[in-house]
């Protein structure tokens, strides 16, 4: 079946340090992969979506590379900001369904 695994429930780091949130997936198809961000008391919003070619999607300083060989779509940013503190979901969409991981809470401290 289709599934997404986010191994870290909570990531805490200091402002200015690099961010990497892990995401691996299982799918019988060649799905699209997404990252969503949810700030406190708000609805999730799309942050990034994988491309079918080798382009690397980027948004708000975040980027992610789809590695089909390792079934991964890790989220990265070179320098964390306080405003990046939020809940991040990795998701995959093989068809009309969408499957979310359990989410990673990112806390950025001064």
């Amino acid at each position, binding site marked *: 079946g289709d599934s997404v695994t986010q191994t870290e429930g909570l990531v805490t780091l200091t402002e200015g340090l690099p961010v990497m949130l892990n995401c691996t997936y299982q799918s019988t198809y060649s799905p699209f992969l*997404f990252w969503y961000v949810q700030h406190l008391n708000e*609805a999730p919003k799309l942050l990034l*979506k994988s491309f079918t070619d080798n382009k690397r999607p980027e948004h708000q300083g975040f980027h992610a590379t789809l590695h089909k060989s390792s079934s991964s779509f890790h989220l990265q940013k070179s320098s964390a900001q306080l405003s990046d503190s939020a809940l991040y979901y990795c998701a995959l969409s093989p068809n009309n369904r969408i499957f979310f991981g359990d989410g990673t809470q990112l806390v950025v401290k001064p």
Partner: protein
Amino acid sequence: AQTIHQWPVAEIKAVGSPLSLGCTIKGKSSPNLYWYWQATGGTLQQLFYSITVGQVESVVQLNLSASRPKDDQFILSTEKLLLSHSGFYLCAWMGGGYAEQFFGPGTRLTVL
């Protein structure tokens, strides 16, 4: 442009009372629609999805039901609320096929 509305914005209800939450999308014909629930401090839990009018698939029921009476409307309901129903309810739409989802603003439900 597509817009998605949810009502009510927030609700405080008593245990055992009925509930009806609504979601409407404008500017998109025949969208795939989804209901999610999120406990306070918890993760997203997909509840139901619907690809067409009159058809709803259950993912996790949690003693809730869903209906799609119109192409642009998705309703979540129960006849008897439980304390465990408290949380944040989100409606989302997908354009169909290999596409991302867009979420509504959500309804915050408190069951006392």
